């Protein structure tokens, strides 16, 4: 797999670290309750198809990226800096 880092350009998969679903962008308030936190830390939509997940260009610029990707084909349709994702 190759990912088009917005900072560095297209790079091989081996430069990136993967952490999981971009659900991490929506961190609950600390008093949001156990269900909200369970959902955030554990539960996953785990879609067979388009997903948004978080990658770290660890062996490159160090940017955390939100990658829109198809889990069935590995086609990457969008890559943006996590910092720039509006919440």
């Amino acid at each position: 797999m190759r990912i088009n880092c917005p900072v560095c350009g297209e790079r091989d998969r081996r430069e990136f670290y993967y952490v999981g679903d971009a659900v991490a962008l929506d961190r609950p308030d600390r008093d949001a309750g156990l269900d909200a936190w369970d959902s955030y830390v554990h539960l996953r939509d785990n879609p067979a198809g388009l997903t948004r997940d978080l990658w770290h260009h660890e062996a490159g610029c160090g940017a955390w990226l939100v990658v829109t990707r198809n889990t069935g084909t590995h086609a990457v349709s969008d890559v943006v800096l996590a910092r720039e994702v509006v919440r």
Partner: protein
Amino acid sequence: MRLCQVETVPFTFDGVTYRGVVGETLAAALIANGVKMVARSFKYHRPRGVMGSGSEEPNALVTIGRGAAAEPNVRATVQEVYSGLEAFSQNAWPSLKTDVMAVNDLVSPFLGAGFYYKTFMWPKAFWEKVYEPVIRRAAGLGGLSGKADPETYEKAFAFCDVLVIGAGPAGLMAALVAGEAGADVILAEEDSALGGRLLAEVEDIDGLPAMRWVADVEARLQAMPNVRVMTRTAVTGAYDQGTFGAFERVDRAGLKACFWRIVAKRSVLCAGALERGIAFPNNDRPGVMMAGAVRAYANRWDVATGTRVAVFGNTGDVARTARDLTDAGIEVVTLIDAAAGEHVIGTKGRHGLTSITVDRNGVVEQIEVDCLAVTGGWNPTVHLTCHMNGRPVWDDAIASFVPTPGAVPDMVTAGACHGVFHTMGCLLDGAQIAEAVVKTLGLKAKPVVLPDADATPYVITPVWSVAGKGRKWIDYQNDVHVKDIELAARENFRSVEHMKRYTTQGMAPDQGKSSNVVALAVLADVTGRGIPETGTTTFRPPFVPVPIAAMGAGGAGMGFAPQRYTTSHAASAAVGAPMIEAGLWYRPSYFPAEGETNWRQSCDREVNMVREAVGVVDVSTLGKIDIQGPDAAALLDFVYSNTFSTLKVGRARYGLMLREDGHVLDDGTTARLGENHYVMTTTTAASGLVMRHLEFVLQVLRPDLDARVISVTEQWAQFGVAGPKSRELLNGLLDQGVDELPFMGCADVTVGGVRARLFRISFSGEMAFELAVPARFGADLYGALVDRAAALGGGPYGMEALNVLRIEKGFITHAEIHGRVTAFDIGLDRIVSLKKDCVGQAMSRRAGLLGGDRAQLVGLKPVGDVKQLSAGAHLFESDAEPVRVNGQGYITSVGFSPTLGVMLALGFLDRGRARHGEVIRMVDHMRGLDAQVEVCDPVFFDPEGGRVRG
């Protein structure tokens, strides 16, 4: 037999010396020398000869070389001959001709598909003791030498606009068009020469022999700086975003092979087609060959595969084969036209074909031949188009599967693998497809003048299996025949995947390249379904088998992972300190002094030295992260469970970091160097992880924070100076005095004018400092520190002593914070500040992570006769049986304390903090230890902490 005079060199096969032509294939050379039988089959050990002329060869697998360099399962049809080549047959004992295991063939009626699932079950113990060892010994083809592979392999990356896979007529045209349009082109060809089938056929292009055209195109390609021609390079796999694996057989300049990672914007697959056979009785004898291979040996290698040849098939290749052989002076005895209902229904000749029995619509005759050329048609080489889960589709016109367009993104197919089966069509297809491809790259193809070439239409009457008694082999390598497929269907293994797995069809080294389509057709026939409905199994990478040494090039020995060395490494190694590894760093274990014969003596001395005088230890491997910015404090408050915004400038504090799931991630001290400037210390093992975590927090969780982090682990060399004489050591070495620096203080200092950082922190419980200098000064500073320590009765200490010192003080490492531990477990839940949010805070409040029966950190001391404690031992009530249901905890760290004269342990015990003083049982089945131990506070030494404060 050779068809012309050539210059030859000697080579051997099974110890017999023959002569071959340098660069021809071993198969060609063996055939030229009249060697018919070259191998034994996998299951029944049937005699087998060369079948084909390419890497798809199912039969002629040999071992090349001897000793550590011996290479098993080499295709004789690919191996090039050189002077002194040594080849050996496989899977036969004592010899190829006299093979004991050939007895399997005699009892084959009992060894049908899957027979082993139904027997060998009684008596129960016999499977592993009797049956399986026999089966294992009989199985396998060639053998590994058991010695390290002595040859050199490498890996490389390549990038291009257009990767053309295969250099037959379609691939050559595609590469030419793409190259002339200005694209960066890689043309990868598995063979040693360009041309594809043109190498093996007698055809004209523009009125001249086809190979003249090939040579002309090759010259034009080589002349273009934007085109790279790679021969002996098989593209092995298609991966995401235009990435391909390719295996290059180099065999020169000391290099055995190279594994390529090729990244291409576009790819054109021109992999050609593979010929298939026909299932007829005893169609596996040496001398029964693919018609295309028979032509290849005659036309390309000038070698006759027989003296009396018959040709059997269902396409125009029957006549073409007869024509070529006749022109080459080889006698063609008879043609059997399967399309007209004429069949070969039997063969004879144990170690080589002697005759065939032919049924021409009821007229049966036996004909003496020593070679039978067979063709059942051609299958497009669709393999790479299946590597991303694409499934090929059935095409009735060619009675085979063709690729599904778009099966691999940005890949198109051209030529025979695209279902185009004559040279003119391939040239046209290659040119047109390349024109379209370069257009998508924004390039414009130059006008192409297509040469004139053979355009005979491909006409096929599908023939899969003929009537007649005897086994009709389909998968030669795994000895699968028609009846096996019938049996599978009878037992309801009717799904194509079930049939494959039950019969092992297509699972041998050729992965069914020569047999899968025939097997599917037979299954379809037996089950009364059409072939499209029956479906196919999946082709998976690699296209040709790749040596582990090639794909794993660089991994052998120390190459597998980086080795990290501290600035003091040379000095430690010079005094004979054995090294241990932590987080890829090498650290001294202990420093043996004169007269010391084991590590414990050294360790005890070093511990005493620190407790009584002063010791020096390199702590540079601990992660150091520089944190700056207006929100640096807020960042630390968010990543640490305790508070750092209240830390005064010039002070350091212990910090505990949680994962978002509420468990402990890491710990360390962080110092505030300025209002907006901190330097964080992590454990050695977690330094990378914590750095990534901080970036995650800053970029993903809290982009509102204005702070920056950078790893400075390798930029600073840092040394611990610990012991009652540590102040004395540093005073006079530093340009400033250290007496004023309070416990947990930090300061900018200079050492001989060099900028340095001084921290008064301790991991030993003694008064201690850590002194950091830019790494280039590390070695010098270490030398100075050790010299000064020696003058004070101290010296360097290693990891063993460091470990004992910290156990005496109950300090934890990753042996304790092993990923399943909470702040509560280590008695630090009170430092999780609830005044602010932090990573892991919410989840750390879950019921299961607090209180209850959780195991808690305790100290343990032996109180019985057994004084030995061990990490990894489990804990039980003092009189309980050591079984799982009685388990109450485990020991994480042990060390002999010279200070207290006893072995000490840290561990986790259910409700342990409430059980100090209780005597319990420690059992280590692994080391045969069973001891009574007393539960106590984990701080064994100087619990008041007076020493550290001085």
